């Protein structure tokens, strides 16, 4: 079996995220490649048993590189009727449903809007249904630990985890070790969870219910040490690494917002790197506080999601005008307005590109996978410093919460980001530009003899004094644009995976990477001349992009929006790109992309 997709689903309080991420850790440790995606409601704890309260965690593990959490699960573990109802439509035909039959009470069935009991009325025909009395079996298993009744009941996620580990032939030991660390101060909870885990594993081993153990062989990843990172964790590490390599303090100013807050949490836990996190009064303050920090010579970063980015627009205008380094991470979610806060979307690209008044260009990057958030966060800082500009890094809910293996980097392999010493007083002018990058010097308060003032008013070229001169404004608008365009010389060229010319080029950006890569791979193996180009630099676009686009008969742009990159490509390159637009708050399935490719190409050759 080359890969397996499993989904844990239950009430938001059932501990499904924990069970799922523990399973993912074990699968990774045992050598498979794992991609994960939690799916949880924005309500913290909706009423127990309700459809609104269902929380899920899907993981895909394989003996080869995968970059998606899997199209549809083969195994669904449903802790109650609501979890079954919400998740069943995604299950593969013939897939396995493991349910906690104890929770299929008339009351819970009613909360899930089931007229009858699906375990009995044939509603699950076509699936292999394995009802397990998890509540009762868990209760018995944890009894010796003598926990209060409510706490004892909470252990049943470990029972489910035990079942799943047996099903895929994974060891228990690492989970037991994790429990020892986690519950060092609560031995009763440690013992109870451990008992429940073993009970689940042993039940699966002995019950006649399970006829087959599924195994997934280890994958062949490049040598090295690995760990599993979510996109938000990876972004935080990338920022710390970049500030460290720049020899500067990292100031991260942010206002709590889903799904970006974990970056703030992660950074706040690493004060020993001289990371200074500021939880500000609002999104605007976060943006301009980061800019104030940059003015002071720190690496100023702010993170947010769409609603926050709307508010940061004025701060970004000031950053463009003052030409200071600033990194903004937009972890996109489904909009507009409050939209669907925990669901993914890629619909902020146009705002990243254009969403400010005046001619206000800045650099825009996009991470392609959760682990790539490390690289792109580092890159955002590098470009911000070198080109003295705000840089926007686009992530999204799918990347932020999804996790995959990240090869641990040797810090010595990271580039040096230190900037040159300040110019001598006689050579200094606040807006005297570097001939190559057009960047102005970053001279910070505290530097004797170079006192100067910057601000939002138009600046006179070179001197930086306030100017309303007509010709000067034209020149400065053009200089600011040229400065951003010049970044194209400082970024890697775009690369295609697949034939260097052909019938179709699939162009993507951001979190669609995994689904597009897998879909293109499938179609190419079927003999079609299809290639994949994934953009991680959106402004400026790579210099070789026009030439690459011209080598394919057709261009397809799958996006989780209504065609924002497609519009950009049509405008810039006058190419007749077609789109595949999905805005359901969910990432693409490989199958959806593959179907669109095949339709475009006509029927595949027999």
């Amino acid at each position, binding site marked *: 079996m080359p890969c397996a997709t499993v989904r844990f689903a239950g009430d938001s309080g059932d501990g499904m995220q924990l069970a799922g991420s523990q399973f993912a850790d074990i699968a990774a440790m045992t050598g498979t490649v794992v991609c994960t995606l939690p799916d949880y409601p924005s309500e913290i704890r909706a009423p127990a048993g309700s459809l609104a309260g269902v929380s899920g965690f899907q993981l895909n593990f394989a003996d080869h590189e995968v970059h998606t959490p899997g199209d549809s699960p083969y195994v669904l573990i449903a802790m109650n009727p609501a979890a079954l109802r919400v998740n069943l439509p995604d299950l593969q035909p013939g897939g396995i449903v493991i349910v906690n039959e104890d929770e299929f009470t008339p009351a819970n069935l009613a909360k899930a809007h089931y007229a009858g009991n699906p375990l009995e009325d044939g509603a699950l025909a076509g699936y292999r249904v394995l009802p397990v009395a998890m509540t009762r079996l868990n209760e018995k298993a944890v009894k010796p630990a003598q926990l209060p009744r409510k706490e004892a009941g909470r252990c049943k996620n470990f029972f489910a985890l035990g079942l799943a580990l047996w099903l895929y032939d994974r060891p228990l030991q690492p989970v037991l070790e994790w429990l020892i660390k986690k519950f060092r101060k609560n031995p009763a909870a440690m013992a109870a969870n451990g008992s429940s885990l073993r009970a689940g594993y042993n039940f699966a081993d002995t019950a006649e219910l399970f006829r087959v153990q599924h195994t997934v062989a280890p994958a062949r990843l*490049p040598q090295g040490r690995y760990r599993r990172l979510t996109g938000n964790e990876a972004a935080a590490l990338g920022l710390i690494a970049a500030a460290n390599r720049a020899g500067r303090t990292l100031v991260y100013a942010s206002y709590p917002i889903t799904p970006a807050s974990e970056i703030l949490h992660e950074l706040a836990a690493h004060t020993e*790197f*001289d990371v200074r996190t500021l939880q500000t009064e609002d999104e605007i303050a976060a943006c*301009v506080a980061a800019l*104030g920090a940059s003015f002071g010579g720190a690496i100023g970063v702010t993170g947010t999601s769409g609603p926050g980015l709307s508010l940061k627009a004025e701060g970004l205008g000031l950053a463009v005008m003052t030409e200071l380094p600033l990194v903004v991470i937009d972890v996109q979610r489904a909009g507009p307005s409050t939209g669907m806060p925990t669901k993914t979307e890629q619909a902020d690209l146009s705002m990243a590109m254009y969403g400010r008044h005046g001619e206000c260009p800045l650099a825009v990057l996009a991470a392609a996978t959760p682990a790539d958030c490390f690289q792109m966060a580092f890159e955002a800082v590098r470009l911000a410093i070198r080109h003295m500009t705000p840089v926007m890094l686009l992530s999204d809910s799918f990347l932020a919460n999804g996790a995959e293996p990240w090869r641990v980097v040797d*810090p010595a392999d990271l580039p040096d980001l230190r900037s040159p010493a300040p110019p001598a007083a006689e050579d200094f002018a606040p807006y005297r530009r570097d001939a190559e990058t057009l960047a102005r010097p970053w001279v*910070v*308060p505290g530097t*004797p*003899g170079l006192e100067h003032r910057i601000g939002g008013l138009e600046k006179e070229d070179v001197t930086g004094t306030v100017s309303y001169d007509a010709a000067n404004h034209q020149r400065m608008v053009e200089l600011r644009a040229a400065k951003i365009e010049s970044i194209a010389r400082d970024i890697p060229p775009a690369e295609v995976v697949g034939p260097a010319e052909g019938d179709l080029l699939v162009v993507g950006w951001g979190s669609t990477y995994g689904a597009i890569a897998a879909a293109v791979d499938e179609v190419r193996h079927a003999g079609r001349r299809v290639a994949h180009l994934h953009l991680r630099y959106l402004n400026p676009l790579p210099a070789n992009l026009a030439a690459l686009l011209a080598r394919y008969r057709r261009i397809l742009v799958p996006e989780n929006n209504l065609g924002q990159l497609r519009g950009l490509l049509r405008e810039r390159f006058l190419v007749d790109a077609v789109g595949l637009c999905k805005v359901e708050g969910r990432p693409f399935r490989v199958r959806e992309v593959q179907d669109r490719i095949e339709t475009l190409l006509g029927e595949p050759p027999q």
Partner: protein
Amino acid sequence: MSNALECCTAGQADGNLHRLTREDFQSSQEVKWCPGCGDYSILAQVQNVLPRLGIPRERIVFVSGIGCSSRFPYYLNTYGMHSIHGRAPAVALGLKCARPELSVWVVTGDGDSLSIGTNHLIHCLRRNLDVKILLLNNQIYGLTKGQYSPTSEFGKKTKSSPLGTIEHPIRPLELALAADATFVARSVFADPAHLARMIEAAARHKGAALLEIRQNCAIFNEHALDDFSDRSVRDKRWVYLEHGKPVRFGKDAGQGIAVLGMDPIVATVGANGVREEDLLVHDAHSRSSARAYLLAGLQPPDFPTALGIFRQVEKPTYDDLLMAQVDAAMAKRGRGDLGRLFAAGTTWLVD
């Protein structure tokens, strides 16, 4: 003494030490406020006070928002940022946290910090960030040519309120006290000596300092302060607060403020059996801000306007607390090591 001398020198790029003077803080920019504007007086006093502080010029940063008063940084030969409408305290937050050793000042106006940026002002004060805020209050929007501001008096007729405003003015000092600000003071452009003293006191306060400076707008609110600051009426309309002293005003300080129940009253010493010890004694260092609140609320026509330091108390500053956490983390866990950070948590080897 050698330290003090060193502190009083400007940049030493030329190797010559010299004592800073007012001229050292004048920038090359032509000052473009309207003739007769109160801003000139305020700028002059800031330039007078800065050399006295013993802070090297390059370590001083003025941050402003938008409005006439926010042009301030351009006219001072320090580091400066003319930022966005209302946001100066937030810019200052990031700057001060990145560089706690800098002397960071915010210059703002009534529209800037009491309307579009009120949020930032309140949070800056309650955090007790070590910044000095000069709030130039002329009770009008000048740069946009004369609309009423959040501090304009009720009923004021302006271009945007031809029938008179139907808004009650916001009261900056009471707002600051509610945010538990550690330094709250008021001065007026028409009394340069007092103004200079207040600027210096704010500068020397460790923590967030709010100094409201009442001023005119020569074009759109010329007579707003006539009843208040004209030399002929100052005796009656101003009461200077001095810590530890009775609150007295009027000709020969014959009148004072007393408290009856919870309410302030104007009392004449010697009349109706009022003795000096019946007057309210100002205590700027009281833990409770109730007295400061009462004094900040005195306003015409029934009362004189109080000038001086209403409240000055000690409290740890945000920037000190932040750095203490950074230092503690480094002491406990050692200075961050990227190799360790990257390989933390559950890892596995692929051979």
